[in-house]
């Protein structure tokens, strides 16, 4: 089985969110960058588990971004994966990014393409579904479990108020979320090995951009907490009913 895992680079989950250039750019100074947690913990680790079960499995990682992304890609390679491809493209439009990945995927003959359910920066959860539509592949979104038996995939996806079990033939695209695999820490062998794994850089194709970011905005600051004495919780209930009018 040949798997392509889409890896995005995002600010750390605890990074301070601020903007510069008249609120048009993310303030990246001093920000620690990580592999998007959904891509790492769920998509990549599940792929690594498939390879542990069947060592003939080939895992390729793909990232869309500039050379500054290489350390994050190496970190992903330390967790697993045979080689990585970086598409040297700096766009933010989900369709353009998906088109770049689809170009690579088309050539690679992958049986399975895994993405995280969304990135923690732009939260668009679009890439998997878009690649599927571009390449006319089956798509299962927000899966919490995935098993492959021969050329049949069984996935469990979360739906409102429950779960749904789906079956599909490979090739298939799955977006992954919590439940799919457990977070791992790369070991020394993985880190050393990652240094020599191939990281291929390819130049981007000409693609359309459907959207652009006009500006950012911080949410209004909270007015501050209204503390209610612990010996009078009934006052909280009164305030929620009469002041906030939410109960």
């Amino acid at each position, binding site marked *: 089985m040949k798997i392509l895992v889409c890896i995005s680079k995002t600010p750390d989950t605890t990074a301070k969110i601020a903007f510069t250039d008249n609120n048009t750019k993310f303030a990246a100074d001093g920000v620690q960058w990580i592999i998007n947690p959904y891509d790492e913990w769920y998509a990549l680790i599940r792929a690594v588990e498939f390879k542990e079960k069947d060592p003939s499995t080939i895992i390729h990682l793909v990232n869309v971004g500039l050379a500054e992304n290489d350390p994050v890609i190496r970190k992903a390679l330390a967790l697993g994966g045979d080689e990585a491809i970086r598409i040297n493209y700096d766009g933010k439009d989900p369709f353009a990014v998906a088109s770049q990945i689809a170009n690579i995927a088309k050539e690679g003959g992958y049986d399975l393409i895994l993405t995280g359910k969304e990135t923690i920066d732009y939260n668009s959860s679009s890439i998997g579904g878009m690649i599927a539509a571009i390449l006319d592949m089956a798509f299962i979104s927000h899966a919490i479990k995935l098993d492959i038996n021969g050329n049949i995939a069984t996935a469990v996806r979360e739906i409102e108020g429950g779960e749904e079990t789906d079956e599909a033939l490979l090739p298939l695209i799955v977006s992954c979320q919590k439940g799919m695999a457990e977070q791992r820490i790369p070991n020394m062998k993985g880190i050393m090995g990652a240094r020599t794994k191939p990281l291929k850089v390819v130049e981007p194709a000409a693609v359309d951009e459907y959207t652009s970011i006009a500006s950012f905005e911080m949410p209004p600051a*909270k007015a501050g907490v209204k503390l209610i004495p612990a010996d009078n919780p009934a006052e909280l209930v009164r305030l*929620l009913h009469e002041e906030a009018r939410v109960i």
Partner: protein
Amino acid sequence: MVLVYIDQADGQIKKSSFEVACYGAALAQQLSTEACGIIIGNTSEDLSNFGNYGLKKVYSVKDASFNNLDPQMYIAAISGLAEKISANVIVLSNNTTGKAVAPGLSVKMKAGLVVGAVALPDLSNGFSVKKSVFSGKAFAHIKINTETKIISLNQNSYAVTKTDAKAEVEDYSANGGTPKIKVVKTDKVKGEIPLSEASIVVSGGRGLKGPENWGLITELAHLLGAATACSRPVADLGWRPHHEHVGQTGLAIAPNLYIAVGISGAIQHLAGVNRSKVIVVINKDPEAPFFKAADYGIVGDIFEVMPKIIDAVKNLKGL
């Protein structure tokens, strides 16, 4: 024309569908046009009632081949109708169906997509949609530069208003193509309010000390008609099922009221709940970071405070 996708499960229309209907109707007014809806799958509900929410007409796709969600079939049905009625804006809810369908619809219709919209577009300089980014910590204004536009609206972001107008209902037979996904089974938790649709959520953290104390959470939730949720450690420890986990890696929710009991409020937890309209924090540690994000708070022992809150709610409800 604005086309709104009306989502249903087991014949029941989802609450978020009324939000997108109202949003679509308001957007149509902005664009001096009309809003129509499409519903896929059988329902016994009276679809003409969507007129109450501003839709002129509802197209109903009843073909049994659409009974389960296969994104590409839904994409074919929605885009087919959009083309037929010359819809140039399509609105969906950013729920599990919307997330599965909207990206492919964007490709199929060569239409720019904004996922997680929180307000009507700004038309003063092109077509720009405000959306939630950085897991609720900020907003971005995204400009859609294509002729056709798709908006996926965050749940609980747009107020539902009603009139007594009626919508015309028309059966629409769509061609979805050959299914690629086979749904083997669905398991629904019976009698519980789905977390993503709940207007009130009562959530517990490690401060509850063990699953045996969850009665404090479930009882309050039951009284308030609320859904129950939990923090990540609680789900990881197996005290509560994973689908209740809200936060950065769990579900992101935006209820009208979020009551956090015994949760310290790590930044990853806040990322999943910071869009809630009112946040109440009950914690014995006055230094808990959650208090900074809260609207109301009680610093105290939850095992003493919670029973009193439950009693006060019972009083309020006349029980």
